């Protein structure tokens, strides 16, 4: 009842969706005018898991609530996080939602710049990590570094100024295009096929009930 029924449900839902995807008349079955059976089941499943949308809010509240309660290091930032979390959620849920001017103003003024700045900082971290950890010890690491260097030069106008695209082999830009189109594409395809086979095997294990960890701990 606690584990067996959910496992059976997973298998049945997998089978149901698979049949819908494979049998076209079933996929396009109209339950009423313009209403497809597949889309309604799909929407109802989406509706079901969207009901869990407050779990992120609850988890953050539990984690940061504990930090505040136990006065752990940096607890004052947790107070700030909870104020912002609930303030913005209340603004979004009860005061106009996605069309609200204040909601969108905060999104454009804070979330967009913070998000892109956080990602842009990775440029410094990658450069610093590469400087510290990347040593040319063998042919493989030499190849990787030379290729990375050529690709970077091929993408910028400095590379074009040093070795222009009109000159022999198309310059850095021409070599970069060839590297991307032939060795890179060949290696990505081969790796992609390996990844697909592994992932497909994992999917089948879950569908057949051989893999049960997604259902959570065994103590409950």
């Amino acid at each position, binding site marked *: 009842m606690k584990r067996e029924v959910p496992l059976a449900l997973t298998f049945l839902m997998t089978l149901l969706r698979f049949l819908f995807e494979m049998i076209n008349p079933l996929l396009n079955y109209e339950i009423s005018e313009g209403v497809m059976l597949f889309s309604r089941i799909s929407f109802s499943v989406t*509706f079901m*898991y969207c009901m869990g949308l407050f779990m992120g809010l609850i988890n953050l509240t539990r984690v940061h609530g504990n930090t505040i309660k136990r006065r752990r290091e940096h607890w004052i930032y947790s107070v700030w996080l909870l104020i912002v979390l609930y303030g913005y959620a209340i603004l979004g849920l009860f005061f106009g939602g996605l069309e609200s001017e204040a909601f969108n103003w905060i999104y454009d003024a804070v979330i967009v710049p913070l998000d892109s700045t*956080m990602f842009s900082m990775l440029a410094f971290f990658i450069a610093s990590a590469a400087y510290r950890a990347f040593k040319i010890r063998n042919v493989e690491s030499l190849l990787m570094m030379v290729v990375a260097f050529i690709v970077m030069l091929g993408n910028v106008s400095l590379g074009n100024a040093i070795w222009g695209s009109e000159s022999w082999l198309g310059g850095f830009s021409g070599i970069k295009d060839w590297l991307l189109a032939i060795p890179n594409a060949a290696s990505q395809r081969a790796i*992609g096929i390996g990844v697909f086979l592994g992932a497909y095997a994992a999917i089948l294990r879950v569908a057949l009930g051989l893999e049960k960890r997604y259902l959570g701990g065994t103590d409950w």
Partner: protein
Amino acid sequence: MSTDPQILVQAICTLACYSYLIKENFAYRIAEYTLVALYTSYQITRLFHSFIKPYWQNYAIGEKQYYFILMGALGLLLYTRYAPPQYRWLARYPIALSVGWGLGGAIARSPRPVFTQLMDVMRPLNTANNVLFFVFFMAVMSYFFFTTGKESKFIQGSGRLGRYIMMIGFGTAFGNTVQGRISLFLNRLSFLLTDWLGISI
């Protein structure tokens, strides 16, 4: 310098983030915690207004598709994870249903893009590039061929070539990633100099 309050807030947020490059400090931590909180709330709002509210109004109430109420109630079982231990197993039901639905889609749909790529690998061997592409592809595949990997000199050799080809692939990925991040950095720099300080570059 811009007097638009939104641009000022954007500039403060950007500088607060970059202050981490000197050392970890109050401004960066506030920026970090603010982003986590705002993003969570944004996603909650988006999901609520894009799925929960319209689906409830249009299908459950409008079209009288009452199974949406049943599915909604099943979805609420997810919160039994926070209940006393004897009720927590109830959360497995919505997880099982949504995982199963997703798996069925993945089993049916995921082979298609891979087979499309495999078809592209089978190019006519009429140009040097096509021959090289096929040789490189087979070399990388042979690197992952462990059945006779140790015994066969041929597989060992082609596996070594495959390793070199993969390093070329990783090199291009590394170069592109670094440049992608640098272009994001330049975008922020351009915002600070042009939009905020009004310096034309």
